[in-house]
């Protein structure tokens, strides 16, 4: 049986602010991971990563991150590193959690 594909999103850091951004369905970027476009196959993931890599004027270091989809189909980080990136540091109320 083929291994089940873990859904992914494309994430990067913003060139100007350095904060975390996510590639959306419209081909733009959002600061909220829930807006990210979930990618359900490796081909789709590779294609969208390619799209992101061409947007160097906005996005630095795009890569694919594993997600889990909630009941509304919204993506949530699968790994704790991505969870921290989606929130901000734990020692101060700074970063995304403060927005």
């Amino acid at each position: 049986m083929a291994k089940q594909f873990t859904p992914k999103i494309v994430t990067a850091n913003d060139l100007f602010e350095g904060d975390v951004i996510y590639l959306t369905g419209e081909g733009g970027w959002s600061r909220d991971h829930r807006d990210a476009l979930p990618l359900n196959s490796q081909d789709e993931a590779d294609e969208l990563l390619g799209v992101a890599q061409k947007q160097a004027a906005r996005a630095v270091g795009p890569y694919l991150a594993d997600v889990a989809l909630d009941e509304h189909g919204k993506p949530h980080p699968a790994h704790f590193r991505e969870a921290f990136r989606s929130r901000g540091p734990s020692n101060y109320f700074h970063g995304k959690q403060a927005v």
Partner: protein
Amino acid sequence: MYIYDDFDEGFVRERVRQFRGQIEQRISGALTEDEFKPLRLMNGLYLQLHAYMLRVAIPYGTLDSQKMRQLAYIADKWDKGYGHFTTRQNIQYNWPKLTDVGDILDALADVDMHAIQTSGNCVRNVTSDHFAGAAADEIEDPRPTAELIRQWSTDHPEFQFLPRKFKIAITGSPNDRAVTRAHDIGIRMVRNDAGEAGYEIIVGGGLGRTPMEGKVLREFLPKADLLPYLEAVLQTYNLAGRRDNKYKARIKILIHEGGLDDFRARTEQAFETIRKDFAGPSDELAANIARYFEPPEFNNVRSHGFEKALEANPAFRSFFETNVTEHRNPAYAIVTVSLKAHGATPGDATSDQMRTVADIAERYGHDEIRVSHEQNLILPHVRKADLPAVYALLVDAGLATANAGLLSDIIACPGMDYCALATARSIPVAQEIAQRFDELKLEHEIGPLKIKISGCINACGHHHVGHIGILGLDRAGVENYQITLGGDASEAFALGERVGPSFPADRIVPAIDTIVTTYLEIRESEEETFLETYRRTGSAPFKQALYPEENRHAA
């Protein structure tokens, strides 16, 4: 304090101007990120988890009030009102915006500071004893030598692209507060049989992925030979060091693989050639530099008022016992300003706290401040008579935690709260340990105990040399912490030993609790420190307490 001459100032301003241009080119698309990244790193600008991070060099950890106030100003104007002091005696800003970095660097240049060579495969900021120039046990102030090395290594054409980064630490005291045995080159000031001051050169130490204790390359190097000798070491490393594998590129690996004797022979050979026509900084320059580090004019009038305050105020007494160290001048003392309030982020200071320390240094401390590799601030020259006043000001600023050298004086790297390389968080672990033992009110009874935490094997938090070391790992997508015991950063240097399997995040603080309780149970007397107990008993009693299950099965 060393003051820039026109050449230094011009060099730094020119670098800022260039970097502004490079930022513009990156934004316009003229530079790709791959092209821009090495350029920004050369200027101390990293991209971390949540934002850019700017690492500012504080040469050998020495500041004055003007510089400190400017660091506070930058924190307020372009960051979030605080800065993070690191184990490399630098300061890091966690939230700068790319388009502000040029202004920040110019603001630094206004006070003779910069962020050059805080990244990349070059000679990094030279670190030193934070009690330099004040310590009672010192042979000589190591900072003139550190400054000489800084000038020699800054923009050195041959050593900008070494196989890997290169760290040098220097101490002027037999009591090593600069961890010289864990640096690519460690320098200790020593005296030879004739009583002349010179250097012992230690090489090939380092922490990180492959921790190694530095080895003595030269037992006594006359002072005048220092730079040609260092040049020979660097040249030998630059030619022979591995460039095929990042993890094997440090000088420690070269020496480990090829042997110390071989490295010494090559270095000495290179030294013979270099010494003949060494074109680096001259003796004249060294003498000129030394002038900037003349000791302040001490006011030797002793006052006994402070002794009355010690008797009258137990909190002040407690502070005096832990955070005040003997000065070479009996009328003076060295004050450690703890950046480790229980539950606070180790090494962080708000802009207000920075200004308070600047004010105190200016008024009571001959305008000198140091950053320690243990992530505290130091007022190296405070008259004992002024200690009660200084203490009162520190209390008001939340800077008078009496815990220097105690359990809650924890080193913690930024870990996965900020650092892009991290495998787990460090800061919350430090916060929880400090809070836990503050509630128990036990740390003064426990006595000297150094806990050091790193968020990945790069070991910026020096966990290998913590009496208790904690390393954060990612084990199958869960934060896990590995404990080492018995490390020692001092002249009695030792690398800690792994005690057993790692602990998940919710069990690491209880595990530390178990270790400390075990120590209290088995120490022979209140005077026997944690490290002494560990050396006497080895790890067995701690293992037994930490892993009772396994020990039962094994029995």
